């Protein structure tokens, strides 16, 4: 249907005809613009073109990934009437919500801010935290914890140091001020992230079932409010910016990076939660994140099956003379769109006046299904809301297995004639591995985050998983949370790498005494138009989906970040997962540190002969090759069930998952707790195999338990009955030395030397001369 053109925009600059160049500049394909015309029944105005460009960007539309994401399980099979039901599913709203019993629920989600952080690390990371917190409280939940997952190039480069310093300071600046503790996280350093760091932030909130609020505009005539900070010219087109590769010119995109105000966010949290507590006042609410006012209006309208009319003259503005394009595309932070019940305008205005915040009545819910925007009395955009959301384009991209996999997957140490370690080599390798920033203590990072505010943090950062006590009315519950993803494994075997990210995350939670509940994922990949990148994406998603199904861990939300490439190439595929686990009893909370001399160390999962993709191979031999370690879902399930059973039986003093660096790194880390201890280990019982693989291989499905000596026979026999390989490998000693007996002779280290290597590595790399 042909429709009449809109009247001229009040700002003459916006009255240019839409040319192929303008379409291209907005990141839309010519055929996509043809669809825009079909939806509108006429040519678009420049304001409308801007609106389509952000809403149809990958960041908002998931146009290249939507078909893949459909493979994720979104419900928990083992849910009961009073536990584990997914109350709001992935993709339906700003964050998913899952039932944790007794009328309480948690909302959580992870989101990336990779591109802004590459250009302006402090503000990029800070606003990433701000954005994810809004996604949680917009659901009606009070934010109670944050985690983050960071990836950088190797720490020997000055650029990486600048990025790390900026990102950590930015997260600290925002999270500390809003008063939500950062209780866990993971940081990896690898060349593939040089120039394209990853900054993924997660927020989790708690709420009662009856407090759930949705981003829906309904009820003809209901008023639409704009609350929070005023709109400025910052962050123009950030969503579109996040959907292209970084280049040398990207730093001139700085206006696309937003500036955060955590104080404003804190006020907004309190004011919004206070407003939502007023019975029947709020009809719908959504934060203005990517694509700001545009996204929040068309998404709420589309979800509610309604239309929305807004008047830009009523939008609080930070500067004079902003035109409709700028106001609609601004990504100024700390703003929310709220739809309240007609006739109750005074109630919302009173709440926001108490907190000294803007609450501007900017529009009305209509029944036209259209998003209509006016400025100075002129209609400047008039678009069917569903065209911007449900009817955005969807593509099935071409996938091609990357050629490098032929070489790496066939690599074995034997075929490559890689010399095995002798005793001296092994003695030197351990401190080197412990001091590599990926393995080393992240204390330099987490001591900058307030990880204790809200006084509920039970297991502080630095153990296998963060554990938090949730205060729910007059009762309390305990949850554990953990992020995981080894990009190196995903590079070498995308499907299996993703499986490992999941099973390892689950294993970490189990080691903390938690039963895995649900997950959120952040898919960080390169440009999907390159078939090799799309292959990695497709395989990783399939790997995550099958693991989630096997372990009955539903996906309750997530984020996709593509175009993570710098001129040097794409990052290693990084499908970061965050899983929340539920702890039945406080007594089950388990840490990774040995606490008592005389305790025994039991290795679960055996000692397979694998070296592929290990940190050892990368650090000592300079190779990122081989196949990723094998994954066996059934063995993994048996292992995890066994550990939980032993923890509940009260026989486990400490539990620690074997991951990067393998067996010796894991043993060392268990000795780095508050008490100074050592260990005497005997590995001569294992079948003869390569020493490097035995000590530093990263075979999956393995956990070290620290148990009272008297319980060892019981544990070994239950393990046998459960079909879990278990070997007593040594004893915790009062002398702070680590001695290891191997088929190649004895090895020994001073624990304090190892601890210093591990504890001070990042700190000394980041030391600023002349400061205390």
């Amino acid at each position: 249907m042909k429709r009449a053109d809109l009247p001229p925009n009040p700002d003459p600059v916006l009255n240019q005809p839409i040319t192929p160049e303008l379409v291209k500049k907005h990141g839309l394909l010519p055929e996509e613009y043809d669809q825009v015309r079909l939806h509108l029944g006429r040519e678009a105005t420049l304001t409308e073109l801007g609106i389509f460009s952000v809403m149809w960007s990958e960041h908002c539309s998931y146009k290249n990934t939507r078909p893949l994401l459909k493979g994720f399980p979104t419900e928990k099979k083992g849910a009961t009437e009073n536990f584990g039901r997914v109350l709001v599913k992935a993709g339906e709203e700003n964050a998913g919500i899952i039932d944790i019993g007794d009328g309480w629920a948690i909302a959580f989600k992870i989101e990336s801010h990779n591109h802004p952080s590459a250009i302006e690390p402090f503000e990029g990371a800070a606003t990433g935290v701000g954005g994810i917190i809004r996604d949680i409280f917009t659901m009606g939940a009070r934010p109670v914890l944050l985690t983050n997952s960071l990836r950088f190039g190797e720490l020997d480069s000055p650029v990486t140091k600048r990025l790390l310093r900026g990102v950590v300071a930015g997260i600290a600046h925002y999270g500390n001020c809003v008063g939500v503790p950062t209780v866990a996280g993971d940081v990896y350093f690898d060349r593939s992230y040089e120039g394209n760091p990853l900054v993924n932030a997660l927020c989790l909130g708690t709420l009662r079932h009856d407090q759930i609020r949705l981003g829906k505009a309904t009820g003809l005539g209901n008023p639409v409010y704009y609350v929070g900070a005023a709109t400025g010219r910052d962050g123009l087109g950030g969503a579109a910016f996040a959907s292209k590769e970084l280049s040398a010119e990207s730093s001139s995109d700085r206006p696309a990076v937003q500036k955060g105000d955590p104080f404003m966010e804190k006020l907004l949290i309190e004011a919004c939660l206070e407003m939502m507590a007023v019975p029947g006042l709020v009809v719908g609410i959504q934060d203005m994140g990517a694509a700001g006012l545009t996204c929040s209006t068309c998404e709420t309208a589309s979800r509610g099956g309604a239309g929305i009319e807004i008047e830009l003259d009523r939008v609080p503005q930070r500067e004079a003379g902003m035109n409709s394009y700028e106001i609609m595309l601004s990504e100024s932070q700390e703003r929310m769109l709220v739809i309240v019940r007609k006739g109750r305008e005074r109630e919302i205005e009173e709440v926001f006046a108490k907190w000294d915040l803007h609450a501007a009545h900017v529009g009305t819910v209509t029944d036209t299904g259209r998003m209509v925007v006016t400025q100075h009395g002129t209609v400047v955009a008039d678009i069917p809301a569903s065209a911007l959301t449900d009817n955005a384009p969807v593509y099935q991209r071409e996938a091609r297995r990357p050629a490098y996999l032929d070489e790496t997957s066939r690599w074995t140490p034997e075929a490559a004639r890689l010399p095995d370690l002798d005793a001296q080599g092994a003695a030197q390798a351990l401190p080197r591995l412990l001091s590599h920033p990926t393995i080393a203590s992240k204390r330099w990072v987490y001591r900058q985050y307030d990880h204790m505010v809200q006084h509920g943090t039970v297991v502080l950062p630095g153990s296998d998983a963060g554990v938090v006590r949730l205060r729910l009315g007059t009762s309390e519950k305990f949850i554990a949370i953990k992020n995981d993803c080894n990009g190196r494994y995903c590079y070498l075997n995308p499907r299996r790498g993703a499986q490992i990210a999941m099973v390892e995350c689950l294993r970490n939670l189990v080691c903390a005494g938690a039963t895995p509940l649900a997950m959120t994922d952040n898919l960080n990949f390169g440009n999907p138009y390159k078939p090799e990148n799309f292959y990695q994406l497709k395989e990783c998603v399939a790997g995550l989906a099958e693991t989630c199904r096997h372990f009955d861990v539903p996906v309750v939300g997530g984020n996709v970040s593509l175009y993570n490439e710098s001129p040097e190439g794409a990052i290693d595929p990084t499908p970061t997962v965050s899983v929340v686990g539920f702890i039945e009893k406080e007594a089950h909370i388990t840490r990774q540190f040995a606490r008592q001399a005389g305790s025994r160390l039991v290795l679960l999962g055996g000692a397979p002969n694998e070296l592929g993709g290990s940190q050892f191979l990368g650090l000592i031999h300079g190779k990122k090759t081989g196949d990723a370690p094998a994954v066996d879902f059934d063995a993994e399930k048996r292992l995890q069930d066994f550990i939980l059973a032993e923890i509940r039986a009260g026989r486990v003093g400490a539990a620690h998952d074997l991951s990067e660096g393998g067996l010796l790194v894991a043993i060392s880390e268990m000795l780095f707790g508050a008490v100074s201890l050592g260990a005497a280990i005997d590995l001569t019982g294992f079948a003869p195999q390569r020493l490097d693989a035995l000590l530093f291989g990263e075979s999956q499905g393995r956990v070290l338990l620290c148990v009272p000596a008297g319980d060892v026979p019981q544990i070994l026999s239950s393990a046998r009955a459960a079909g879990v390989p278990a070997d007593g490998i040594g004893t915790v000693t009062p002398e702070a030395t680590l001695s290891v007996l191997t088929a190649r002779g004895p090895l020994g280290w001073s624990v304090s030397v190892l601890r210093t290597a591990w504890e001070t590595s990042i700190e000394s790399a980041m030391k600023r001369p002349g400061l205390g």
Partner: protein
Amino acid sequence: MTIAVLQFPGSNCDQDAFQLFASGLGLPTRFVWHKDRKLGDADMVVVPGGFSYGDYLRCGAIARFSPIMGAVREHAERGGLVLGICNGFQILCEAGMLPGALIRNNSLEYRCMTCDLAVEDAGRAFNTRTVGRRIRMPIGHGEGNYRIDDAGLERLQTNRQVILRYVDNPNGSLGSIAGIRNEEGNVFGMMPHPDRAFERFHPSRDGLRVARAVLSLRFPDILKESA
């Protein structure tokens, strides 16, 4: 006995302080909004941690002008108890109710960690007998570096106004000072968080000893509960 916990825009340890007294000590505790001008029947005022008004200017520099601060000052002048924790300590210094100032940590970084603290014999309420010689409490701040001029430091020492010192100075504070009291002995300020040291899973429960010691000035019997 009633505890009043102030709430400024940007306070974020208000709930923590509330729970320290309400659930940790089981005392009647309530919030007082910064725009109020009256404290009501409060026996002790707690100025909690956080980032009042964002603390973009200087920590506590705006909060000291909040309407409620007049009542807090009058309460203190009448001999009422005041405890400032973290940002609360900064606010009390800005308001002139405690001497000295808190500036940026010498590392230029925020620090969240648990610190060993040496308790000073600082008079009737706060001393090694009421609190213990050594305690442990978490800190969480970017501006906890205590400064005061030489004459002021001299006065602090002479009057036994230093209540807590860091065993291992985390922020560059002069004399490793972690907490002080006013000359009269009824206004207390400290950077470490007793409100993060009272639950069974916290790094310690020494926050309860600190809170009881401060309260003991008016309610000596409260010390018996800890025995």
